[in-house]
């Protein structure tokens, strides 16, 4: 069993990683960080740059948690990829970061987080970045 974190190099992603790390420590399980950009372009802002990856692995090592990072690209919807990887790794919990959105923005844009909440067959921990 592992703790799965859906990670993006944003404030929400960092919050999700911090919560995931704490959760993995509490449960005494491994940490699986999924940082999967959409395929098709050679470069994507969704990919964690090498210095950030180094920072994440450093923090995991300090906390004494085994970390696996997946950065393979996916096709289609990111929520499907998260749910698929969660099933594949048999995650005990999925940790995701939530963005602040207005009700109208939500209506227009839909939400990856919402789809993960609806589609996942396991517990989902949704966290928000610290205000400020």
């Amino acid at each position: 069993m592992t703790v799965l974190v859906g990670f993006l190099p944003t404030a929400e992603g960092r919050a999700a990683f911090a919560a995931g790390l704490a959760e993995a420590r509490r449960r005494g399980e491994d940490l699986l960080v999924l940082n999967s950009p959409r395929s098709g372009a050679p470069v994507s802002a969704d990919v964690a740059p090498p210095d950030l990856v180094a920072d994440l692995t450093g923090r995991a090592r300090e906390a004494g948690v085994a970390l696996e990072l997946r950065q393979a690209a996916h096709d289609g919807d990111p929520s499907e990829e998260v749910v698929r990887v969660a099933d594949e790794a048999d995650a005990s919990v999925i940790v995701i970061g939530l963005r602040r959105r207005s009700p109208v923005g939500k209506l227009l844009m839909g939400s990856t987080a919402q789809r993960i909440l609806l589609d996942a067959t396991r517990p989902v921990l949704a966290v928000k970045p610290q205000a400020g």
Partner: protein
Amino acid sequence: MDLSPVLDGFGVVLEPTNLLYCLIGVVIGMLIGVLPGLGPAATIAILLPLTFGIEPVTAIIMLAGIFYGAQYGGTITSVLLRLPGEASSVVTVFDGHALARQGKAGTALGIAAIGSFVGGTVSIVALSIVAPVVAGFALDFGPPEYTALALLGILLVSTVSSGDRLKAVVAASIGLLLATVGRDGFTGAERFTFGSLDLADGLDFVPIAMGLFGLGEILHNLEERHRAVQAPAKVANVWPSRADLRRSSGAIGRGSVLGFLLGILPGGGATLSSLAAYALEKRRSKTPERFGRGAVEGVAAPETANNAAATSSFIPLLTLGIPANATMAVIFGALLIQGVTPGPQLVSEDPELFWGVVNSMYVGNILLLVMSIPLVGVFVRILRVRATVLAPITVLITLVGVYTVRNNVFDIVLVIAFGALGYLMKKLGFDPGPLVLAFVLGSLLEESLRRSLLLFGGDPTGFLTRPISGTLLALFLVVALLPLVRPLVRAALGRRRAPAPTDTHHPDHKELV
């Protein structure tokens, strides 16, 4: 040498319209240089219809800008992402990316930009001196000389270019065959038209180039998935240090000369010269082990050479009317569309066009030098655009564009047919370049061959008795037989001593190309 047409050429370049199109050309060149897959030949082919509405000088200034601009752009992704944007920047990856990993991406890009600028400028100066001389010499050429020259050009392009020789020759033969479609210029008989009115005037160059280079490349790229998506790279704006500049000055000088010489050769061009310049620097260096681990010379030499070659490859086109590589073939087509026949008479009959285009390269190189350092981050952004977004837009531009040329639906059908052919050729390892080049030279070859046979009264030995055509045909034979003779020579040499050191660099370059 009479300098007044040269100065008039500057007058042409400095017209606001021409300056604007020069800027547009180099910006587009930079962008497609950054994009892997879409090369200058494809872009120029796709943009051919755009040149219809503008003056010939302006059109060629823009297209030339795309070509040498792409040489600058290709460097950026080689250095930052280990992803060569153009074939001519493949060797830059070795040392350029190594420098970037040491946090010296700015140094590598700065050296590459300076080298490109120097190489380009040296090459333009040399071109300005050499081209009128070559053109003056070629004014005496008659049909027999052109026959020999066209044959040699086609053969050189098929054998020197990267990839399988046999496949390139097959592609060139198909190109020659396609050039015969339509009405015979001498007798008026219809050939390979199958009774179709659309084919009676022969196949047009525009849809063939747009299909093979444009659509074919787009289709092929769509299939190729980028396995690893990378994080956007940060560029620190570090101007190269004085020590780096001093260290690479020799490499830049040698790269300029080598690039210029190789660029003139048909089939040589930017890719070959960058490989050769890198190999030369590595061999000359006292510390060859530094190469591949972030040697500035390893960035300076190929980048200088590819720009010098890009410029000097205009010489055979503008003075002999023989395109030296695939991109030049497309520019040749653009000139024909504009009603300008490139050849030795161009310098004397249309000095405004000739010197306008040549001198625009000075301006273009300055623009590129100014843009390439501060705007790297902006250009790299285009890499975030997904192929699924980019491809449909490009296809739409291609198809609408080809229709606007003659308002003819048949041309759209041709583009799609040749697009499919180009895709299949790429899949099977055929380079479409020789096909397009042979197609362009096909009508020239046929016309001058038949005219010379009329001249000689049907006696083919006439080719050998004229000194220039005889020499060219002898060269043709040498090039054609070289692949057959080389293994024999090597075997003979191998018995006496160990294999020549020349070939030690070769294998690792080949697999990257």
